[in-house]
């Protein structure tokens, strides 16, 4: 194909890129503008919104709360899911198909349905709402973590190794920590990063189940949005920076793995 005929494709792609980038770009400018409300262009540039974001104790607290909730939920997911996946594929192979479809179910389940089910069932009981959110987080990332665990178990051919260890008399705890974990550590890194970025952007479940009682970064953003546009845009840009960093890491690790396999 000649170079001359490629311009329509370039045009389409440039239009797409503009549509996708303009909202991000305007948010970036807004976070750097001294004031920008009635004019087409901002009146001056400043970093003070970023400074006031980091000086705001409610922002720091929201960040800590978010990290705490995500890390604890993900630790529980790993501790529960790794032995489950191993045991099912070793000892209950006939249940594997059923198990797989159950685990992948939440892919298709919108957060709004999960949230209304949880509230319907538990709002009258004296269960801390935070535990419900943690449970919901578990369900949200379960499919991603499952695929990461299963793929890494298969790629290092783990099952015969475990069977050998069992035959030689190792106990289950030892097998878990000295055989399974070291071998799948790298493989579950990517799915953990992906899960982390999904939970970092979670708003629906958190807002409906605990709401303002446990202000995560998303709920903080939603509240600040009604107060100061400039600080909110600084938060959005910082949030996107973290997410881009995470996806860059994910791409880096996935490509690294592919090269090794070849």
């Amino acid at each position: 194909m000649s170079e001359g005929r490629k311009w329509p494709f370039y045009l389409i792609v440039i239009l797409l890129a503009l549509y996708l980038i303009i909202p991000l770009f305007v948010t970036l400018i807004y976070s750097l503008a001294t004031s920008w409300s009635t004019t087409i262009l901002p009146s001056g540039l400043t970093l003070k919104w970023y400074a006031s974001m980091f000086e705001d104790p409610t922002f720091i607290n929201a960040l800590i709360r978010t990290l705490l909730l995500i890390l604890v939920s993900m630790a529980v997911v790993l501790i529960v899911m790794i032995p489950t996946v191993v045991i099912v594929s070793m000892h209950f192979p006939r249940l594997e198909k059923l198990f797989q479809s159950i685990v992948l179910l939440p892919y298709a389940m919108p957060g709004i349905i999960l949230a209304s089910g949880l509230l319907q069932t538990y709002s009258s009981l004296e269960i801390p709402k935070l535990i419900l959110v943690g449970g919901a987080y578990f369900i949200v990332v379960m499919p991603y973590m499952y695929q990461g665990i299963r793929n890494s178990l298969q790629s290092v051919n783990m099952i015969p190794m475990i069977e050998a260890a069992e035959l030689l008399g190792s106990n289950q705890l030892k097998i878990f920590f000295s055989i399974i974990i070291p071998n799948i550590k790298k493989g579950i890194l990517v799915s953990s990063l992906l899960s982390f970025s999904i939970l970092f952007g979670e708003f629906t479940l958190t807002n409906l189940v605990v709401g303002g009682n446990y202000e995560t970064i998303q709920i903080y953003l939603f509240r600040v949005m009604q107060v100061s546009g400039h600080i909110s845009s600084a938060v959005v840009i910082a949030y996107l920076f973290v997410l881009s960093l995470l996806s860059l890491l994910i791409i880096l690790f996935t490509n690294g793995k592919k090269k090794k396999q070849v």
Partner: protein
Amino acid sequence: MRYTRFKNFLVLLPFIIIFAAVLLIPFIMMAISSFFQDNTSSFSFYNFHLIFTQKFYYIAITNSINLSLFSSIIGSFLGLFVTYAITKLAHQTQNRLLLILNATSNFAGVPLAFAFIILLGNSGFITLMLKYVHIQFNLYTWMGLILVYVYFQLPLAIMLFYPVFNGIDQRWKEAAYLLGASNRRYWLKIVIPYLLPSFFGTLTILFANAMGAYATAYALTGGSFNLMSTRIGALTSGDINVMPNLGSAMALILALTMIIALFINQIILKKLRRDIG
């Protein structure tokens, strides 16, 4: 032997408990309670009757279905053209574009709504520019929502189409031309039938994605635009007028529409396969 089997089952227990407590039991409870009127204890179809007869509720359903249908159709068609254009560019450019797409596909919910508010809200950057040429634009209407929804649908559509377009073998074209097919015939008889199943699959995924979207719509309109997801949220978790059973009925209808969409997709796929075979 029996003892180890029991021990294995014990390892599975935490998973079974969490799955039952967080997913299975709530879903069953939701389905059951949708057949009970709020604040009463007798079985009835009152909630469903209310939803389908009161305008306030059934408008939420039609609004949601319309918004999801339109945004997924626009997203799928645009995605198809854009992905085709992307695959025609140099490999280096393709990889860079995929990086941008990956970054923007994370950009949804509250942050996305915020970006569109400063871009197109009442004193947004583009709204002001449009005012100079005497065009009024209101983000908090049908058109505004479509624009925002397409924004998060399009990257997803492209990510789903990209591997499909990459699967088109250059040799199909060569073979078709050798057998005397015109360019138009090659597209009609080979490329389009190849793309159709993925097209309908993507359409279904985008539709479900839009039906379940809560954060974007809620952050953008604060619930003032009547949609199923924001209505369920207000009914189950609002401070005033909480009617959890009515909310459950609504959530059940939402789940049903998604299942129906999936079912229609299956029927279309079956028909397509039969036509090709």
